[in-house]
């Protein structure tokens, strides 16, 4: 009969009419996200050793990393993550040897102002604190070195005195016999 398919279609829609609905009321109800979700990136300043692996791994050169060498030790002074070019493929997080870069589950990345899109992970206080730490560590090391050098000098000086005395002793002995 011509209408058989039509009626079957209407039966299906009517059955679906009474079934529970699929929509999730988004702002109030949030679906749980899997832990591998690639949302907003997150940067752990102290873990980063400025090895530029992430900068090289990214296809769209999204990350710009600026460093400053203080006492022969590189300090990250600037870490920009330009989110608008990011493909969220996770290659940078995979390339980082120290897991300093992670993708969180936050997916609401919209901003009111365009410049907020470009994430600036490193703020000056962190840099200053790190620099101070490094200087401090350098100073301590220096102090330790001096102390150690002083001890060595001391030790060598004693040894020297001892050897002079001993040499003087030998002369005396040689002279006597």
């Amino acid at each position, binding site marked *: 009969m011509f209408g058989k398919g*039509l009626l079957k279609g*209407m039966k299906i*829609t009517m059955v*679906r009419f009474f079934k529970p*609905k*699929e*929509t999730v009321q988004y702002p109030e109800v949030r679906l749980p996200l899997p832990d591998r979700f690639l949302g907003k990136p997150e940067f752990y300043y102290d873990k980063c050793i400025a090895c530029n692996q992430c900068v090289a791994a990214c296809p769209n050169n999204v990350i710009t990393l600026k460093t400053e060498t203080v006492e022969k030790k590189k300090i990250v002074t600037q870490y920009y993550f330009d989110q608008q070019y990011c493909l969220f493929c996770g290659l940078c997080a995979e390339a980082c040897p120290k897991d300093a870069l992670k993708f969180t589950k936050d997916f609401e990345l919209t901003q009111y102002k365009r410049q907020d899109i470009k994430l600036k992970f490193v703020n000056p206080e962190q840099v200053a604190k790190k620099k101070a730490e490094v200087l401090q560590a350098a100073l301590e090391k220096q102090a330790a070195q001096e102390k150690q050098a002083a001890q060595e000098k001391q030790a060598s000086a004693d040894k020297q005195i001892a050897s002079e005395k001993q040499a003087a002793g030998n002369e005396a002995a040689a002279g006597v016999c």
Partner: protein
Amino acid sequence: MLENIFVSSLNWLKNLMAAVELPAPLADMLILVIKLAAILGFILINALWLVYMERKVSAFIQGRIGPNRVGPFGLLQTTMDVLKLISKEIIIPAAADKKLFLLAPLMIFVPPLAIFAIVPFGKGMAAIDLNLGVYYFVAMASLSTVIIWMAGWSSNNKYALLGGMRVVAQMVSYEMPLILSMIGVIILTGTLNMNGIIQAQEKVWFIFLQPVAATIYLIAALAETNRTPFDLVEGESEIISGPFTEYSGMGFAFFFLAEYANVLLVSVMATTLFFGGWLAPFGWTFLPSWFWFIFKVYIMVFIFMWVRWTFPRIRVDQLMGFAWKVLVPLAIANIFLTGLGKYLFLS
């Protein structure tokens, strides 16, 4: 008491005017204006409500929830939409035919409102009890073809032109089965008066006497109101939204609401002709007659919506072929059989 709450309040008003010795013609005119204003209010509120109902029904069929944010259960959604559309700028395409372009949305409401004047909402509740009821309905219903075609032509857009040509082809070719299926009913009742038709269905509704005419009527009604599976005029996925492509703001809102007024109109006619108008089924007269009328109308509207969200769209040439090769011959055969049946039954 609930039964003729409207009729008695009208009589109370008449006596009041008589008491104030208003001259008779002025009083009658005033009564008529009040009646029509009440009907106008009924239709506009219904149009708003139907938009909300359609969005909810389509959502439930598609496994969604539908509007539920604006107002309690989303009831104010349509009013807010209309307010938003009022605030939108009316853009008139550069080379458009300005007068026709602006006239079309205004006139789209005229045919449905005109027809509602003769609709018997309840016992004795027809604004104008015209004894040419059905004839008047068919005459006014064919007007909306010209108005939509006017919108399509004047907006100087190729998609609108295509849509306009489609509306002419579709509405004209589906008027024939619409009228022929009504003739089947008229033969039984012998009168064109709407109340007369309803009285004739006292014992048995015409849906049982004229099942073929009822199906033809419903299919032709679907096509008259440009709803799926015949919504070629506004075929979104083919010609964007046909004649209404260039309209923005209130222009689009009028066309949108007029479509629902037409749906209401067509289901009102279906109820009057085939489902016994305001007659209570199985004689349950404890509920007022106008309640039964609105209840049946809304069942019809729900079926229209249910059909819309299940079927895809038919193609233009199939549409024409279906009308002229299937519906019209069927309707004529039905008339012949009804005539024969009446002659045999009477003699």
